[in-house]
C-alpha cells in the first residue's frame, strides 16, 4: 500500500543521500549541508504551525541559541574538555529546550496574532541584546571556534561535516515523524482543530502548548548547532527577523499541511539561492514573489499539490491531462522569463552602476548589458519582449489551468478522503 511505497521511496532517498555526496564538489557538498540544516529547521518550525496551528515569527531565537550553545561547547573542547565532537548538537538541544520552555510558557498564553507577536518580540529581544553581551554572544563580531578531531575523525573536510549533519537531521526527522504517532502527537492535531474542546476533555491546553513549543525550539536549536559546526562561527545576525521569516517562507511554499512539505520548501529555496544568488541581486524579491504566488494560487504549497495528485491518481484522466500540464509548464516558463527580464532591466536602470554610466554620459540613456546582449533603454524591443512574454505566458497558463480544472471536476469521487491531510491520516 501507500506506506510500503513511501518506505521504498524513503530508502532510495536515503541511499542517494549517503552514496552521492563523495562524488560532488565542495560547493555542492556545502549546499547539501545547508539543505539538511534548513530542512530540519523547517520541520521543527512546522511542528508549531502545521500540527499545532501556532504561527511563530521568531524562530530565529532558538536557531541562534542552538548555534551559540554549540560554539561554547566547541570552545570548551578546544580548551581540552573530553567531549565527543559529534555530540556537540546536544548542547544546542539542551539550550533550546531551556529557552524554549521559558519563551514558550509566555508565548503560548496567547494564541493567533498575539502569539505571533510575542514570539517576534522574543527574537527581537535576543537580536538587540546579543551585540551587548560580550561573554555569551561575543558582542558584535560573535564567537568562533574550531571542530576538534574525535576518535580518529578529523572533521576537517566538508564531507565529514556532511555525514555528521545527515545523521543528526535523520535522527531528528525520524523523531518528529514518530511524534505524530504518539498520543501527544494526536493531541497536538486536536489542539489545532479545536482547542476549546480539548480543555473540556481534561487536558490543560497551556501545558500541552508549552510542551509542543519546547520540542519545536529544541529541534530548531539542534539545526542551529549543526550550522555552527559547519561554519564554526556565529554572531547576533542569526537572531535577525529575516532568519525567522525565511523559515516561514520555506515552510509555507513547501506545504505546511504535509509532513515532508517543509523539507521540499527548504530544499527548493536553498538550492535556488545557491544557483541564483550569485547571478542576481534581486533574489530576495524573487523569493517574496514566489511566496506571494504560492499563497494566492496554491495555498497548500508544493507538498500539498503533490499529495493531492497522489491521493487522486486513480480517479484522474492522466492521458487527457498530460498535454495541458505541459502547456501550463511552458506558460509558467514564459511568464517567469518575462518577470525576470523586467525585474533585471529595472534593477539595472535604477541601479548605482547605471547612474554612474548616465552621469558619465551626461544624463542620456546609454544602452546596457543584460543576458549577454546589449539593450537600448528607449528601444521598442527592450519593453516589447517582456510584455509579449508576460501576456503570452499568462494566456497559456490561464487556458491550461482552466482545462486542467475541468478535468479535475470530471473525475470520479476519490476513495481517499481528499480533505484529509497526511498528518491527520498518519496514525490509525
Amino acid at each position: 500500500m501507500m506506506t510500503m511505497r513511501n518506505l521504498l521511496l524513503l530508502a532510495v532517498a536515503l541511499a542517494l543521500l549517503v552514496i552521492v555526496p563523495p562524488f560532488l564538489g565542495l560547493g555542492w557538498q556545502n549546499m547539501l549541508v545547508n539543505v539538511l540544516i534548513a530542512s530540519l529547521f523547517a520541520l521543527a518550525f512546522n511542528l508549531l504551525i502545521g500540527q499545532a496551528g501556532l504561527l511563530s515569527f521568531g524562530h530565529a531565537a532558538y536557531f541562534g541559541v542552538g548555534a551559540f550553545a554549540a560554539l561554547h561547547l566547541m570552545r570548551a573542547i578546544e580548551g581540552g574538555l573530553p567531549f565527543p565532537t559529534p555530540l556537540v548538537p546536544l548542547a544546542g538541544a539542551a539550550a533550546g529546550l531551556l529557552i524554549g520552555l521559558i519563551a514558550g510558557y509566555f508565548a503560548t498564553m496567547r494564541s493567533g496574532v498575539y502569539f505571533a507577536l510575542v514570539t517576534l518580540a522574543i527574537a527581537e529581544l535576543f537580536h538587540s541584546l546579543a551585540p551587548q553581551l560580550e561573554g555569551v554572544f561575543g558582542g558584535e563580531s560573535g564567537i568562533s571556534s574550531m571542530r576538534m578531531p574525535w576518535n580518529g575523525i578529523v572533521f576537517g573536510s566538508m564531507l565529514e561535516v556532511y555525514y555528521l549533519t545527515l545523521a543528526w537531521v535523520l535522527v531528528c526527522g525520524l523523531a518528529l515523524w514518530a511524534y505524530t504517532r504518539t498520543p501527544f502527537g494526536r493531541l497536538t492535531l486536536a489542539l489545532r482543530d479545536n482547542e476549546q474542546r480539548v480543555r473540556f476533555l481534561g487536558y490543560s491546553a497551556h501545558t500541552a502548548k508549552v510542551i509542543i513549543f519546547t520540542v519545536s525550539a529544541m529541534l530548531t536549536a539542534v539545526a542551529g548547532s549543526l550550522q555552527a559546526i559547519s561554519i564554526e562561527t556565529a554572531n547576533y545576525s542569526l537572531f535577525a527577523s529575516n532568519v525567522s521569516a525565511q523559515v516561514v517562507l520555506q515552510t509555507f511554499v513547501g506545504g505546511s499541511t504535509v509532513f515532508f512539505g517543509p523539507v521540499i520548501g527548504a530544499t527548493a529555496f536553498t538550492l535556488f539561492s545557491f544557483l541564483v544568488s550569485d547571478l542576481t541581486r534581486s533574489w530576495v524579491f524573487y523569493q517574496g514573489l514566489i511566496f506571494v504566488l504560492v499563497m494566492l494560487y496554491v495555498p497548500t504549497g508544493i507538498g500539498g499539490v503533490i499529495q493531492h495528485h497522489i491521493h487522486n491518481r486513480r480517479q484522474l484522466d492522466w492521458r487527457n491531462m498530460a498535454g495541458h500540464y505541459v502547456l501550463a509548464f511552458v506558460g509558467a516558463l514564459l511568464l517567469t522569463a518575462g518577470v525576470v527580464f523586467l525585474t533585471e532591466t529595472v534593477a539595472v536602470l535604477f541601479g548605482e552602476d547605471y547612474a554612474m554610466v548616465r552621469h558619465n554620459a551626461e544624463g542620456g540613456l546609454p544602452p546596457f548589458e543584460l543576458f549577454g546582449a546589449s539593450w537600448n533603454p528607449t528601444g521598442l524591443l527592450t519593453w516589447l519582449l517582456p510584455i509579449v512574454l508576460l501576456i503570452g505566458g499568462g494566456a497559456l497558463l490561464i487556458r491550461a489551468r482552466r482545462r486542467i480544472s475541468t478535468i479535475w471536476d470530471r473525475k470520479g469521487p476519490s476513495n481517499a478522503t481528499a480533505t484529509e491531510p497526511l498528518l491527520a491520516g498518519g496514525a490509525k
Partner: protein
Amino acid sequence: MTATPTTQTALRLAAITMSFGPIEVIKGVNLDIRAGERHAVIGPNGAGKSTLFNLISGMFAPTSGEIFLNGNSIAGLSPHLINRAGLARSFQITNIFHRMSVFENLRIGVLARHGVRYGLFRPVAGMRQVNEETAEVLARVGLESRGHDLAGDLTYSEQRALEIGMTLTTGAEVILLDEPTAGMSREETEKAIELIRTVTEGKTLLMVEHDMGVVFSLCDRVSVLVYGDIIATDTPERISANRAVQEAYLGEEAAS
C-alpha cells in the same frame, strides 16, 4: 448502590450569579442534583441555560456563589480540572474535531482517562486497552461504521451522537448535555433518547431540553429557568401542572 442513594448530592449550586458586563444573566441560582438522577433544565430562549452549564463546567467563573462537585468546591476552576474532578459536558453547538477521524475524536478523551495525556514515548496505535475502549464507545453511540471517516463529514445527527460519545469518554460520573436532541427529526430524537438513557445508566445527568416529551420519557426531575432564576424544581408531571411555570414558559410555547 448504597441504601440511600437519593440523599447524596452530586452537584450543588449555591447562590451563583453571573454577569456579562452590566447584564446579570444568572441571578442567584440554587440547585441540588442528586447522585444518579436524570435532571432536566428547561426555559425559554436566552434564559441562561447554556450560561449555567458554562459556569458549572468552568468555561466562565461565576461572579459570586459556590459550586460543589461531590462536596468539593469547583467554582472558578479551569475546565480541565473540573473534568478531572469527574464532570463532562457536551455543547449545544456541535463542538468536535472536524479534521480528525471519528475514532480519534473519541480516543482523545479515552487517553485522558488513562492518564496518558502528554504521552510522547509510545505510539498510540499500540495501546490496546485505549483502542479497545474507544471502539466500545464508538459502538455504544452507533458509529461503528463511521470510525475512519472525518468527523466533519458526518451527518448532523451523527455529529450529535459523537458529541455525546466524546462526553462519555473521560469517564466522568456527572454528565451535562446541552440540548442533545435539538434539530433532530422525530425518529432521530427517539433514538437519541434511548442512547442517552443507556449511556447515562448509573451516572448523574443534567440536561438542557426544550422538548417536554423528551423530558417526560427521560428525566426524574425538572428545573425551570426563567431570566436567570430557577422558578421551580419538581417531577415532570408536577412541573407541567404548575401554574407559574405554565405562565412563564409552557404557556408561551403553547401560544406560539
